[in-house]
Protein backbone atom coordinates (compact mmCIF):
# COMPACT_ATOMS: atom_id res chain seq x y z
CA UNK A 1 0.00 0.00 0.00
CA UNK A 2 1.11 3.53 -0.70
CA UNK A 3 0.37 6.33 1.72
CA UNK A 4 0.42 9.45 -0.47
CA UNK A 5 -0.86 11.97 2.00
CA UNK A 6 -1.69 12.50 5.64
CA UNK A 7 -4.28 14.90 6.92
CA UNK A 8 -4.41 15.23 10.67
CA UNK A 9 -4.80 11.79 12.16
CA UNK A 10 -6.08 10.07 9.06
CA UNK A 11 -3.76 8.50 6.53
CA UNK A 12 -5.11 7.88 3.05
CA UNK A 13 -3.74 4.72 1.53
CA UNK A 14 -3.68 3.90 -2.14
CA UNK A 15 -4.89 0.30 -2.27
CA UNK A 16 -4.31 -1.73 -5.43
CA UNK A 17 -6.78 -4.45 -6.46
CA UNK A 18 -6.34 -7.14 -9.09
CA UNK A 19 -9.04 -9.45 -10.41
CA UNK A 20 -8.36 -12.28 -12.81
CA UNK A 21 -10.33 -15.28 -14.00
CA UNK A 22 -7.46 -17.70 -14.54
CA UNK A 23 -9.50 -20.36 -16.33
CA UNK A 24 -8.40 -23.20 -13.99
CA UNK A 25 -4.84 -22.87 -15.24
CA UNK A 26 -1.64 -23.07 -13.18
CA UNK A 27 -0.73 -19.42 -13.63
CA UNK A 28 1.02 -18.89 -10.32
CA UNK A 29 4.14 -17.46 -11.96
CA UNK A 30 2.13 -14.86 -13.88
CA UNK A 31 0.06 -13.99 -10.81
CA UNK A 32 3.20 -13.50 -8.72
CA UNK A 33 4.74 -11.38 -11.48
CA UNK A 34 1.59 -9.24 -11.70
CA UNK A 35 1.46 -8.83 -7.94
CA UNK A 36 5.08 -7.66 -7.84
CA UNK A 37 4.94 -5.46 -10.91
CA UNK A 38 1.86 -3.56 -9.75
CA UNK A 39 2.36 -3.92 -5.99
CA UNK A 40 -1.08 -5.44 -5.66
CA UNK A 41 -2.68 -5.36 -2.21
CA UNK A 42 -5.77 -7.47 -2.89
CA UNK A 43 -5.58 -10.35 -5.37
CA UNK A 44 -8.94 -11.82 -6.36
CA UNK A 45 -8.97 -14.92 -8.53
CA UNK A 46 -11.84 -16.73 -10.20
CA UNK A 47 -11.69 -20.27 -11.54
CA UNK A 48 -8.62 -20.80 -9.40
CA UNK A 49 -7.79 -24.45 -8.75
CA UNK A 50 -4.35 -23.72 -7.35
CA UNK A 51 -3.83 -24.80 -3.75
CA UNK A 52 -3.43 -21.72 -1.56
CA UNK A 53 0.02 -22.76 -0.41
CA UNK A 54 1.32 -22.88 -3.98
CA UNK A 55 0.39 -19.26 -4.55
CA UNK A 56 1.53 -18.15 -1.13
CA UNK A 57 4.94 -19.75 -1.64
CA UNK A 58 5.38 -17.77 -4.82
CA UNK A 59 3.93 -14.53 -3.52
CA UNK A 60 5.97 -14.64 -0.35
CA UNK A 61 9.27 -15.76 -1.83
CA UNK A 62 11.96 -13.58 -0.34
CA UNK A 63 9.66 -11.67 1.96
CA UNK A 64 6.37 -12.73 3.53
CA UNK A 65 3.67 -10.22 2.68
CA UNK A 66 0.62 -12.04 1.46
CA UNK A 67 -2.10 -13.88 3.34
CA UNK A 68 -4.91 -16.09 2.17
CA UNK A 69 -8.20 -14.43 3.07
CA UNK A 70 -10.48 -17.32 3.94
CA UNK A 71 -14.04 -17.49 2.74
CA UNK A 72 -16.65 -20.10 1.93
CA UNK A 73 -17.26 -18.88 -1.60
CA UNK A 74 -15.46 -21.41 -3.74
CA UNK A 75 -15.79 -19.39 -6.93
CA UNK A 76 -13.29 -16.76 -5.83
CA UNK A 77 -10.01 -16.89 -3.93
CA UNK A 78 -8.61 -13.83 -2.22
CA UNK A 79 -5.08 -13.02 -1.12
CA UNK A 80 -4.14 -9.84 0.72
CA UNK A 81 -0.92 -7.97 1.32
CA UNK A 82 -2.18 -7.22 4.80
CA UNK A 83 -3.66 -9.35 7.53
CA UNK A 84 -6.81 -11.06 6.32
CA UNK A 85 -8.55 -9.93 9.52
CA UNK A 86 -9.06 -6.61 7.72
CA UNK A 87 -11.13 -8.25 4.98
CA UNK A 88 -13.95 -10.05 6.74
CA UNK A 89 -16.66 -11.97 4.87
CA UNK A 90 -20.18 -10.77 5.65
CA UNK A 91 -22.26 -12.70 3.15
CA UNK A 92 -21.33 -15.48 0.77
CA UNK A 93 -22.78 -17.98 -1.63
CA UNK A 94 -21.14 -20.35 -4.04
CA UNK A 95 -20.65 -17.40 -6.45
CA UNK A 96 -20.53 -14.25 -4.32
CA UNK A 97 -18.36 -13.03 -1.48
CA UNK A 98 -19.26 -9.74 0.20
CA UNK A 99 -16.42 -8.66 2.43
CA UNK A 100 -15.88 -5.65 4.64
CA UNK A 101 -12.50 -4.02 4.14
CA UNK A 102 -11.47 -2.23 7.31
CA UNK A 103 -7.86 -1.19 6.95
CA UNK A 104 -6.48 0.83 9.86
CA UNK A 105 -6.78 4.60 9.43
CA UNK A 106 -8.64 4.15 6.14
CA UNK A 107 -12.26 4.49 5.23
CA UNK A 108 -14.19 1.24 5.25
CA UNK A 109 -15.33 -0.35 2.03
CA UNK A 110 -17.73 -3.16 1.20
CA UNK A 111 -16.08 -5.34 -1.43
CA UNK A 112 -18.38 -7.58 -3.47
CA UNK A 113 -16.30 -10.18 -5.28
CA UNK A 114 -18.29 -12.22 -7.74
CA UNK A 115 -18.11 -14.84 -10.40
CA UNK A 116 -21.63 -15.12 -11.71
CA UNK A 117 -22.78 -18.22 -13.57
CA UNK A 118 -21.84 -18.77 -17.18
CA UNK A 119 -24.28 -18.20 -19.98
CA UNK A 120 -23.68 -21.81 -20.87
CA UNK A 121 -25.71 -22.78 -17.80
CA UNK A 122 -27.97 -19.78 -17.17
CA UNK A 123 -30.39 -18.00 -19.46
CA UNK A 124 -30.13 -14.23 -19.86
CA UNK A 125 -33.23 -13.90 -17.69
CA UNK A 126 -31.68 -16.04 -14.96
CA UNK A 127 -28.50 -13.95 -15.14
CA UNK A 128 -30.54 -10.81 -14.61
CA UNK A 129 -32.24 -12.39 -11.60
CA UNK A 130 -28.82 -13.21 -10.17
CA UNK A 131 -28.01 -9.52 -10.33
CA UNK A 132 -31.27 -8.67 -8.57
CA UNK A 133 -30.34 -10.99 -5.73
CA UNK A 134 -26.80 -9.59 -5.61
CA UNK A 135 -28.08 -6.03 -5.56
CA UNK A 136 -30.46 -6.82 -2.72
CA UNK A 137 -27.69 -8.40 -0.67
CA UNK A 138 -25.41 -5.43 -1.25
CA UNK A 139 -28.10 -3.01 -0.10
CA UNK A 140 -28.79 -5.14 2.97
CA UNK A 141 -25.12 -5.10 3.90
CA UNK A 142 -24.81 -1.37 3.22
CA UNK A 143 -27.73 -0.78 5.57
CA UNK A 144 -26.18 -3.01 8.22
CA UNK A 145 -22.77 -1.36 7.92
CA UNK A 146 -24.14 2.16 7.77
CA UNK A 147 -22.33 3.19 4.60
CA UNK A 148 -22.58 2.64 0.88
CA UNK A 149 -18.94 2.72 -0.10
CA UNK A 150 -19.21 -0.42 -2.16
CA UNK A 151 -17.14 -1.88 -4.95
CA UNK A 152 -18.35 -4.78 -7.07
CA UNK A 153 -15.57 -6.60 -8.88
CA UNK A 154 -15.45 -9.84 -10.78
CA UNK A 155 -16.51 -11.87 -13.74
CA UNK A 156 -20.18 -11.01 -14.17
CA UNK A 157 -20.47 -13.14 -17.30
CA UNK A 158 -22.47 -10.22 -18.66
CA UNK A 159 -21.48 -7.13 -20.60
CA UNK A 160 -21.91 -3.66 -19.06
CA UNK A 161 -24.95 -3.02 -21.27
CA UNK A 162 -26.95 -6.10 -20.27
CA UNK A 163 -30.14 -5.83 -18.23
CA UNK A 164 -28.77 -7.38 -15.05
CA UNK A 165 -25.97 -4.79 -14.90
CA UNK A 166 -27.93 -1.72 -16.00
CA UNK A 167 -31.47 -2.35 -14.69
CA UNK A 168 -32.75 -0.61 -11.57
CA UNK A 169 -33.54 -3.88 -9.80
CA UNK A 170 -30.15 -5.24 -10.84
CA UNK A 171 -26.86 -3.49 -10.27
CA UNK A 172 -28.02 -0.25 -11.85
CA UNK A 173 -24.56 0.59 -13.14
CA UNK A 174 -24.21 3.50 -15.54
CA UNK A 175 -21.45 4.55 -17.92
CA UNK A 176 -21.15 8.16 -16.81
CA UNK A 177 -19.59 9.59 -13.66
CA UNK A 178 -21.89 12.58 -13.98
CA UNK A 179 -25.02 10.45 -14.04
CA UNK A 180 -23.79 8.23 -11.21
CA UNK A 181 -23.01 11.32 -9.13
CA UNK A 182 -26.76 11.88 -8.78
CA UNK A 183 -26.56 9.03 -6.27
CA UNK A 184 -29.84 7.38 -7.13
CA UNK A 185 -32.92 7.76 -9.25
CA UNK A 186 -36.56 7.10 -8.56
CA UNK A 187 -38.63 4.90 -10.81
CA UNK A 188 -42.27 4.18 -10.07
CA UNK A 189 -41.81 5.90 -6.70
CA UNK A 190 -38.98 3.59 -5.66
CA UNK A 191 -35.40 4.89 -5.27
CA UNK A 192 -32.54 2.89 -6.78
CA UNK A 193 -28.89 3.70 -5.98
CA UNK A 194 -26.41 3.90 -8.84
CA UNK A 195 -23.12 2.23 -9.45
CA UNK A 196 -20.62 3.85 -11.78
CA UNK A 197 -19.32 1.40 -14.34
CA UNK A 198 -16.01 2.65 -15.76
CA UNK A 199 -15.65 -0.45 -17.92
CA UNK A 200 -17.80 1.08 -20.67
CA UNK A 201 -14.83 3.13 -21.80
CA UNK A 202 -12.69 0.01 -22.14
CA UNK A 203 -14.64 -1.24 -25.15
CA UNK A 204 -13.24 -1.34 -28.66
CA UNK A 205 -9.95 -0.39 -30.25
CA UNK A 206 -7.97 1.91 -28.02
CA UNK A 207 -4.33 2.95 -28.07
CA UNK A 208 -3.73 1.82 -24.51
CA UNK A 209 -5.45 -1.53 -24.16
CA UNK A 210 -7.23 -4.49 -25.70
CA UNK A 211 -10.86 -4.13 -26.92
CA UNK A 212 -12.31 -6.11 -24.00
CA UNK A 213 -11.48 -8.72 -21.39
CA UNK A 214 -12.88 -11.82 -23.07
CA UNK A 215 -13.14 -12.88 -26.70
CA UNK A 216 -15.89 -15.15 -27.95
CA UNK A 217 -16.59 -15.81 -31.60
CA UNK A 218 -19.95 -17.51 -31.98
CA UNK A 219 -21.43 -18.66 -35.24
CA UNK A 220 -24.67 -16.72 -35.00
CA UNK A 221 -26.08 -13.50 -36.42
CA UNK A 222 -25.26 -11.22 -33.49
CA UNK A 223 -21.92 -11.58 -31.80
CA UNK A 224 -19.70 -8.95 -30.17
CA UNK A 225 -16.44 -10.92 -30.42
CA UNK A 226 -14.87 -8.87 -27.61
CA UNK A 227 -16.79 -8.71 -24.34
CA UNK A 228 -16.19 -7.07 -20.99
CA UNK A 229 -17.41 -9.68 -18.57
CA UNK A 230 -14.77 -8.70 -16.01
CA UNK A 231 -15.87 -5.46 -14.41
CA UNK A 232 -15.44 -3.03 -11.57
CA UNK A 233 -18.53 -1.12 -10.39
CA UNK A 234 -18.20 1.67 -7.86
CA UNK A 235 -20.74 3.51 -5.78
CA UNK A 236 -20.72 7.27 -6.49
CA UNK A 237 -19.29 8.02 -3.05
CA UNK A 238 -16.10 6.18 -4.00
CA UNK A 239 -15.72 7.53 -7.53
CA UNK A 240 -13.46 10.46 -6.50
CA UNK A 241 -11.23 7.88 -4.83
CA UNK A 242 -10.74 5.85 -7.99
CA UNK A 243 -7.29 6.29 -9.47
CA UNK A 244 -7.37 8.62 -12.47
CA UNK A 245 -6.24 5.80 -14.77
CA UNK A 246 -9.40 3.96 -13.73
CA UNK A 247 -9.50 0.20 -14.11
CA UNK A 248 -6.88 -1.07 -16.49
CA UNK A 249 -7.31 -4.18 -18.60
CA UNK A 250 -3.87 -5.74 -18.49
CA UNK A 251 -2.49 -7.39 -21.60
CA UNK A 252 1.03 -8.11 -20.46
CA UNK A 253 3.04 -9.01 -17.39
CA UNK A 254 6.51 -7.66 -17.54
CA UNK A 255 7.71 -8.73 -20.95
CA UNK A 256 5.16 -11.53 -21.29
CA UNK A 257 2.09 -10.86 -23.39
CA UNK A 258 -1.24 -12.22 -22.21
CA UNK A 259 -2.42 -12.06 -25.80
CA UNK A 260 -1.86 -14.63 -28.52
CA UNK A 261 -0.35 -13.53 -31.85
CA UNK A 262 -3.88 -12.93 -33.18
CA UNK A 263 -4.44 -10.32 -30.46
CA UNK A 264 -6.91 -12.40 -28.48
CA UNK A 265 -6.41 -13.64 -24.90
CA UNK A 266 -3.80 -16.36 -24.94
CA UNK A 267 -5.70 -19.36 -23.59
CA UNK A 268 -2.70 -21.64 -23.83
CA UNK A 269 -0.06 -19.46 -22.23
CA UNK A 270 -2.36 -17.58 -19.87
CA UNK A 271 -6.17 -17.39 -19.57
CA UNK A 272 -9.20 -16.80 -21.77
CA UNK A 273 -9.88 -13.70 -19.64
CA UNK A 274 -7.59 -10.71 -19.18
CA UNK A 275 -6.92 -9.38 -15.68
CA UNK A 276 -8.17 -6.00 -14.47
CA UNK A 277 -6.35 -3.71 -12.09
CA UNK A 278 -7.61 -0.69 -10.21
CA UNK A 279 -6.57 1.53 -7.34
CA UNK A 280 -8.59 3.30 -4.70
CA UNK A 281 -7.44 5.92 -2.24
CA UNK A 282 -9.02 4.82 1.02
Amino acid at each position, binding site marked *: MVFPETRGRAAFAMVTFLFWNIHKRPLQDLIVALAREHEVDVIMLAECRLPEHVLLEGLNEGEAHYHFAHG*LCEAVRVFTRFSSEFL*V*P*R*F*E*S*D*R*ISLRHLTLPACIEVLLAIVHL*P*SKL*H*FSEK*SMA*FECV*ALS*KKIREQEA*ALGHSRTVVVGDLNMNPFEDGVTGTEGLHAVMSREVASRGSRTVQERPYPFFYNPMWSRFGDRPDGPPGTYYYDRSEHVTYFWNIFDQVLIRPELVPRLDSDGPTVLSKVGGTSLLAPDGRPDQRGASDHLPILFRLTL
Partner: protein
Amino acid sequence: MPNENLDFWPADLGGGDPDAPVVLLRTQASLLGQKVKSILEARVSTDAFGGSGFRHTFELVVPAISYSYRLFWIQHGVDPYPVTWTLESQQGTLASKEEFTEWLRGTLGSDRTKRIIQTLLAQASG
Protein backbone atom coordinates in the same frame (compact mmCIF):
# COMPACT_ATOMS: atom_id res chain seq x y z
CA MET B 1 -72.80 -5.95 10.65
CA PRO B 2 -71.61 -6.75 7.15
CA ASN B 3 -74.25 -8.07 4.91
CA GLU B 4 -73.32 -11.73 4.29
CA ASN B 5 -74.71 -11.51 0.82
CA LEU B 6 -72.11 -8.86 -0.01
CA ASP B 7 -69.16 -10.92 1.27
CA PHE B 8 -67.86 -12.69 -1.82
CA TRP B 9 -64.82 -14.26 -0.19
CA PRO B 10 -64.68 -18.03 0.36
CA ALA B 11 -65.69 -19.08 3.89
CA ASP B 12 -62.90 -21.65 4.10
CA LEU B 13 -59.76 -19.58 3.35
CA GLY B 14 -57.93 -21.53 6.05
CA GLY B 15 -54.44 -20.77 7.34
CA GLY B 16 -52.32 -21.35 4.28
CA ASP B 17 -51.24 -24.40 2.34
CA PRO B 18 -49.32 -26.80 4.64
CA ASP B 19 -47.77 -28.41 1.57
CA ALA B 20 -46.34 -25.15 0.25
CA PRO B 21 -42.57 -25.30 -0.34
CA VAL B 22 -41.91 -22.39 1.98
CA VAL B 23 -43.60 -24.26 4.85
CA LEU B 24 -41.23 -27.18 4.37
CA LEU B 25 -38.27 -24.81 4.20
CA ARG B 26 -39.26 -23.01 7.40
CA THR B 27 -39.78 -26.31 9.19
CA GLN B 28 -36.27 -27.43 8.26
CA ALA B 29 -34.86 -24.04 9.19
CA SER B 30 -36.33 -24.25 12.67
CA LEU B 31 -34.93 -27.75 13.16
CA LEU B 32 -31.32 -26.68 12.51
CA GLY B 33 -31.26 -24.24 15.40
CA GLN B 34 -32.19 -27.02 17.81
CA LYS B 35 -29.39 -29.24 16.52
CA VAL B 36 -26.64 -26.66 16.90
CA LYS B 37 -27.87 -24.84 20.00
CA SER B 38 -28.68 -21.73 17.94
CA ILE B 39 -24.99 -21.03 17.34
CA LEU B 40 -26.01 -21.25 13.75
CA GLU B 41 -29.43 -20.41 12.35
CA ALA B 42 -31.17 -21.16 9.11
CA ARG B 43 -33.37 -18.43 7.71
CA VAL B 44 -35.83 -18.35 4.87
CA SER B 45 -36.53 -15.04 3.19
CA THR B 46 -39.23 -14.53 0.59
CA ASP B 47 -39.39 -12.04 -2.27
CA ALA B 48 -42.03 -11.35 -4.84
CA PHE B 49 -40.17 -12.39 -7.93
CA GLY B 50 -40.41 -11.44 -11.55
CA GLY B 51 -43.89 -9.99 -11.14
CA SER B 52 -45.62 -13.36 -11.09
CA GLY B 53 -44.03 -15.55 -8.50
CA PHE B 54 -42.07 -15.98 -5.31
CA ARG B 55 -38.46 -16.68 -4.50
CA HIS B 56 -37.53 -18.27 -1.19
CA THR B 57 -33.86 -18.02 -0.21
CA PHE B 58 -32.43 -20.45 2.32
CA GLU B 59 -29.49 -19.02 4.25
CA LEU B 60 -27.29 -20.20 7.08
CA VAL B 61 -26.58 -17.38 9.52
CA VAL B 62 -23.93 -17.04 12.21
CA PRO B 63 -25.28 -14.20 14.36
CA ALA B 64 -22.12 -13.97 16.48
CA ILE B 65 -20.03 -12.84 13.52
CA SER B 66 -22.77 -11.21 11.42
CA TYR B 67 -22.19 -13.68 8.63
CA SER B 68 -24.60 -15.43 6.34
CA TYR B 69 -24.24 -17.99 3.58
CA ARG B 70 -26.81 -18.57 0.87
CA LEU B 71 -27.26 -22.29 0.49
CA PHE B 72 -29.85 -22.24 -2.30
CA TRP B 73 -33.04 -20.63 -3.47
CA ILE B 74 -36.25 -21.86 -4.98
CA GLN B 75 -38.85 -20.15 -7.12
CA HIS B 76 -42.46 -20.85 -7.96
CA GLY B 77 -45.44 -19.07 -9.40
CA VAL B 78 -48.81 -18.45 -7.79
CA ASP B 79 -49.22 -22.21 -7.65
CA PRO B 80 -46.73 -23.78 -5.21
CA TYR B 81 -45.61 -26.38 -7.73
CA PRO B 82 -43.66 -26.79 -9.93
CA VAL B 83 -40.65 -25.41 -8.07
CA THR B 84 -37.42 -24.32 -9.73
CA TRP B 85 -34.31 -24.64 -7.59
CA THR B 86 -30.94 -22.92 -7.97
CA LEU B 87 -27.92 -24.38 -6.23
CA GLU B 88 -24.23 -23.98 -7.08
CA SER B 89 -25.04 -22.54 -10.49
CA GLN B 90 -27.23 -25.50 -11.32
CA GLN B 91 -30.96 -25.27 -11.82
CA GLY B 92 -33.74 -27.84 -11.95
CA THR B 93 -37.50 -28.18 -11.74
CA LEU B 94 -39.55 -30.27 -9.32
CA ALA B 95 -43.13 -31.04 -10.21
CA SER B 96 -44.66 -32.00 -6.88
CA LYS B 97 -44.35 -31.87 -3.13
CA GLU B 98 -42.92 -35.38 -3.16
CA GLU B 99 -40.19 -34.44 -5.60
CA PHE B 100 -39.41 -31.25 -3.70
CA THR B 101 -39.26 -33.10 -0.37
CA GLU B 102 -36.79 -35.62 -1.78
CA TRP B 103 -34.66 -32.87 -3.29
CA LEU B 104 -34.65 -30.93 -0.03
CA ARG B 105 -33.75 -34.04 1.94
CA GLY B 106 -30.83 -34.70 -0.38
CA THR B 107 -29.63 -31.09 -0.37
CA LEU B 108 -29.73 -30.52 3.38
CA GLY B 109 -28.23 -33.95 4.05
CA SER B 110 -25.45 -33.59 1.50
CA ASP B 111 -21.75 -33.64 2.27
CA ARG B 112 -21.51 -30.09 0.96
CA THR B 113 -24.10 -28.76 3.41
CA LYS B 114 -22.50 -30.69 6.27
CA ARG B 115 -19.08 -29.27 5.41
CA ILE B 116 -20.40 -25.71 5.27
CA ILE B 117 -22.20 -26.09 8.61
CA GLN B 118 -19.10 -27.52 10.24
CA THR B 119 -17.00 -24.64 8.95
CA LEU B 120 -19.51 -22.08 10.18
CA LEU B 121 -19.73 -23.70 13.60
CA ALA B 122 -15.95 -23.57 13.85
CA GLN B 123 -15.96 -19.88 12.93
CA ALA B 124 -18.65 -19.12 15.48
CA SER B 125 -16.88 -20.92 18.29
CA GLY B 126 -13.43 -19.63 17.31
